[in-house]
């Protein structure tokens, strides 16, 4: 067990290193964008009325001060890390003075909820079907499912989402096509609200699942078709172990660890948001927050979202790495 402890420590150190490098890369690129948050703010404000030119210069100065854009690049960089270490992303510039963490905190549950559910469903469905297809390689039905999965997989997501929307929102209007829940419903854990959230999630989730299933299907099928040639599977079959038992405990179980790694990474990735889903279905979430932030030159918000997402994926990878010895008892921690 102490060996495992050492492994955890080493793995955590690596986690910290990777997160550190990742955030720095994001910082550098973010600060290289030519978009000036002050100019963007002024453009928004002044496009809604008649502002005298001489007043604008004043506004510029006070905004620069307000947004904390003063100081040398080194000072700004150090200030950034000081804040980050206190888990404070500072105020958003495009929604000044609301803190970045408030904005992210508001959007994140939607994204994370939708993506977590659809990722897990897509993973489960894809892995199950892929596992069956890899085991019963001659089955026509499964072959057909394979072709469909492969065919749906490369459809540009935007098109697929829009088609779903037109079908279920217009031609046969049974599902809501916009928002995370019905308008005018207070966001409270009431029955109505929960039902409404689920209704609104059906189409976005369906679109994500349809697109997502294919790659899990292919991955699992490939893994299983390797596992079925392993001696322990052949031996179990020979010994008359019941087919479903062979399939579940021998074939699927052994093909699972790599798939789980993929799942963990995808689950870590849910903090990236799903921009197109959010755009098409008007679903609240981090993705559109990010794109808006980029447009507004809101470094603070961009870095906030990016940092959360770096942390998400690294944590996903970390967790699966730490759990791997449990998933696959053969793995020695070295």
């Amino acid at each position: 067990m102490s060996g495992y402890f050492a492994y955890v420590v080493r793995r955590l150190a690596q986690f910290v290193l990777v997160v550190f490098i990742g955030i720095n890369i994001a910082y550098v690129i973010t600060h290289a964008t030519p978009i000036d948050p002050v100019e963007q703010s002024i453009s928004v404000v002044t496009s809604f009325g008649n502002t005298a030119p001489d007043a604008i210069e004043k506004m510029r100065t006070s905004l620069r001060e307000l947004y904390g854009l003063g100081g040398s690049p080194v000072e700004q960089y150090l200030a950034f890390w000081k804040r980050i270490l206190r888990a404070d992303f500072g105020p958003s510039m495009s929604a000044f003075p609301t803190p970045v963490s408030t904005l992210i905190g508001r959007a994140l549950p939607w994204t994370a909820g939708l993506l977590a559910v659809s990722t897990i469903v897509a993973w489960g469905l894809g892995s199950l079907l892929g596992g069956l297809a890899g085991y019963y390689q001659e089955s026509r039905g499964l072959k057909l499912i394979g072709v469909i999965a492969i065919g749906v997989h490369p459809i540009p997501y935007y098109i697929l989402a829009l088609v779903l929307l037109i079908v279920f929102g217009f031609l046969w209007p049974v599902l809501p096509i916009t928002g995370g829940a019905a308008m005018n419903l207070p966001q409270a854990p009431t029955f109505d609200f929960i039902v409404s959230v689920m209704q609104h999630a059906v189409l976005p989730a369906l679109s994500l699942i349809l697109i997502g299933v294919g790659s899990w299907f292919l991955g699992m099928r490939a893994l299983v078709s390797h596992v079925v040639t392993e001696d322990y599977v052949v031996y179990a079959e020979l010994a008359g172990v019941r087919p479903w038992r062979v399939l579940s405990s021998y074939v699927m179980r052994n093909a699972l660890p790599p798939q789980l790694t993929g799942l963990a990474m995808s689950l870590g990735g849910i903090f990236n948001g799903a921009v197109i889903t959010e755009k098409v279905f008007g679903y609240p979430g981090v993705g559109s927050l990010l794109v808006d932030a980029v447009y507004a030159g809101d470094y603070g918000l961009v870095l906030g979202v990016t940092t959360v997402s770096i942390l998400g994926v690294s944590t996903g990878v970390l967790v699966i790495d730490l759990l791997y010895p449990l998933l696959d008892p053969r793995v020695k921690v070295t």
Partner: protein
Amino acid sequence: MTQAETMPGELPDDAQPILSVRDLQAHFRTDRFGVKRDVKAVDGVSFAVRRGEIYGLAGESSSGKTTLVRTIAGAVKPPLDVVGGRVDFAFLPGYGGLRRAPAAEVARIRWRHLSYIMQGSMNVLNPVRRLRSAFVDFAYPHIGESRKQFEQDVVAHLARLKLDPSVLAAYPHELSGGMRQRATIALATICRPDVILADEPTTALDVVVQKEVLAMISGIRREIGSSVVLVSHDLGVHAQVTDRLGIMYAGRLIEEAATVEIFRNPLHPYTRHLISSLPRIGDDVPRKGLEGAPPNLADPPPGCRFHPRCPLAMEICRHKVPATLETAPGHRIACFAVNRSEAA
């Protein structure tokens, strides 16, 4: 086959054999990008195993011994295909092999009457599950009693085989090679089957452990009374435990006799060479190797398959297949040089 060939299992002192194999032919057939290959891995093998005996099968790699035992065990999947012959078990009469028996029958006899120890103990156990679950998966459906009772049976069985019950809680990779092989043997014998097919059960084990495992197999035969078909390329193993021994070469059984008889009086030139080339500690006599290489079974030489390497090869050997004839009681040989009468 010539009619003069002796059928196995008709020895007077023998009751009905528990397992008899007749003229079994199993080929590997592949068709890849139009290149058809037909590897005659087992080409007309006949033998019988009596109740309670350990029957050894020896031969080099590619001699077909593993294919033979797999075919008997019913592990026939493409590209392996049974082309002809039959396999009869006393407990599964009338079908001529697992392949032709109905699934329910096969399910009934598997593990209950016939168990199989596959080659390569490293990989035959599910690496991600504890051994206990292997016992449950493999044997529990055949035993039909409460789980608790079953657990006790397993522990008792392990104790009989001098295995600690703690192995049940272990993952395969946590056990040493020897322990793993013993556990596999325990798994194959838990239902006290009539026939155990054991393919290279001691290969890759250290010599000390190997000896213990062999002792364990002898013990099982003694205690349970199972018949064992033991495949090994190592003549030392056969010398240690088998009662009778069949020597295979290039897919054919070329000599069969009681093990002692084979070692004392090998008749087939190939067997003779095998026995004589074995180095022995304390024996400094230089030994000579056998020239040439085993034949390619996709395109075997005509006639006797050993003839290109045989020091006694005659003209007839090049185009005629020698029959397996009983030259002495219980001693069958397929060789024109030995069975001069046939050659004539």
